[in-house]
């Protein structure tokens, strides 16, 4: 899956740099991707009919972004097989519970996520490296997932 990037969004914005939203169009695209602003903050998109087609495309493009968590990660529980690769590979999990680094599934409630009933269970999303405002560009959980149940959308 191609990851969302600011340029894809920018191309569909009015590109007038009117700053009604408080930013230039490029900065708005970046902020939109980080979920720091809403699409509705771009007034011309909704009021000027010439942007109607672009608005529809943007809404479609941004759909996965709004389906994802604050970390911009989307987990498909149906696809998850509970292999635990993400749990053991996650650097945040290992730093919270060193046992995880030894391949042992965490059973405390402090870690970012664990496996319960054969599926991923997120316990403390705010401990994920990708959690705002600092958002590290960590994608380990997605890279090690056998079943493509974890997707980093942007």
């Amino acid at each position, binding site marked *: 899956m191609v990851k969302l990037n600011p340029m894809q969004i920018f191309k569909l914005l009015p590109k007038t740099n009117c700053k009604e939203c408080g930013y230039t169009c490029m900065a708005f695209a970046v902020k939109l991707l980080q979920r720091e602003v809403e699409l509705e903050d771009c007034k011309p998109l909704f009021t000027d009919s010439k942007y109607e087609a672009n608005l529809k495309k943007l809404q479609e493009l941004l759909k996965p972004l709004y389906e994802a968590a604050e970390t911009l990660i989307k987990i498909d529980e149906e696809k998850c*097989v*509970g292999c635990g690769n993400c749990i053991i*590979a996650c650097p945040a999990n*290992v730093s919270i519970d060193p046992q995880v680094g*030894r391949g042992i599934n965490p059973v405390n409630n402090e870690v970012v996520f664990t496996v319960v009933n054969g599926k991923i269970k997120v316990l403390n999303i705010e401990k994920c490296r990708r959690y705002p405002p600092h958002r590290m560009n960590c994608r380990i959980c997605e890279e090690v997932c056998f*079943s493509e149940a974890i997707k980093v959308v942007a």
Partner: protein
Amino acid sequence: MKEIERIVCTGCALTCNDLVVNLKDNEVVEVWGSCSHGTKRIKELIMEKLTCSEKDLDLALEKAKDILASAKKPLIYGFSSSVNKSIKIGLKIAEKLNGVFDSPPSICHLHVPLAYEYEIENAKLEDVLEKSDFIMYFFANIADTHLRHASRYAIYPRGEVIKSGRESRIVLAVDYLENENMKIAQHKVILSPGKEVEFLKRLREFISTGQVPSLEGLPLTLESWLILQNDIKNSMFISAFAGPHILANITAREIYRELISLIKTISESGRESCLMPLAEDLNSLGASIIPYKQFGASHAIEFSDGNPIHNSTTSASSKLLREEVDAALIVGSDPYTHLPRTTAKRFKEIPVIYIGERKTMISKIAKVNIPIAAIGIEAGGKVFRIDGEEVELTPFIKPQEEVEPEQVVLEKILAKL
């Protein structure tokens, strides 16, 4: 709510021992740490329980005895998910009745008995975790069969020697088709059937001589081979895991012989090495090791006047096809999922006794059904992990009244014969 820690999983032959089970009124509410296979076994098993075909257990045992005692050549089949004690009793029953003993690995998991018959000195899974820096998967897809293999033991854990875990481990995956397992491998080799021995030979040639072998006929570019070669050269502990994608065809033995030679060459080159069969069923390794140690054959043993015979005609499949067995005792496995349809349909023509935890295709046609306590959940015992380590199971639920452990039921049948 009661929390029980360090439960041994019975979902596959990895027997992960770090599960935590939450119980309420003797029922499982949550399982922490088990993959979907383990969870399915623990949570769904309870719903599909086998019921006794007779009024009580004694009556069922009596009927089972009558069927077995009046048979000229009974087939004693299954045991790939049984505890070691049950396998030993099953062999005694077959020996006593001059019957045929066979297990599912004889046809569709041949990598299990073959790997054992070659008797190489093996390391433990913990050694792989601590020290192995080169992992090879041959004809296997752990993403389908052994879900926690990579995260619990082989690739992701940080070991005492391999301190950075994944960053210091190289993975080679060899198979006939691209699979999910290859997603986490640096080296992927997709072979056409018939090229297995050739590939293994070239790998061995490089390890023993240090020279680049001819790559003619192999799906590898010189560039990818050189990277693979360099990674092997820099490794200290090579672990090989052989999977079930090689079926029991005529080349299977040849492929395994070559695999063993490769592992021996690696050892001779001064590196540590190991080879483990990726046995799928809980104890398919036990169902191969125990007969092999007792009778010199890991599967398909026919007893004649107390003497064990093993050849191409002594397998369950062959015996059923040639109508040479006249009754069957099936323990803990469903032959319909392991044997070809042409042979499995023969079960409809002979009296069948089924001893198991859950309803299966075979329980539908069995004359006698005897339920047993769920292995590793309601009843204990020992099984062999994929590295040959004997693991004690940890039951955590009380079984229903009148439901005995598998080994007790088999012992009672043996005593009656």
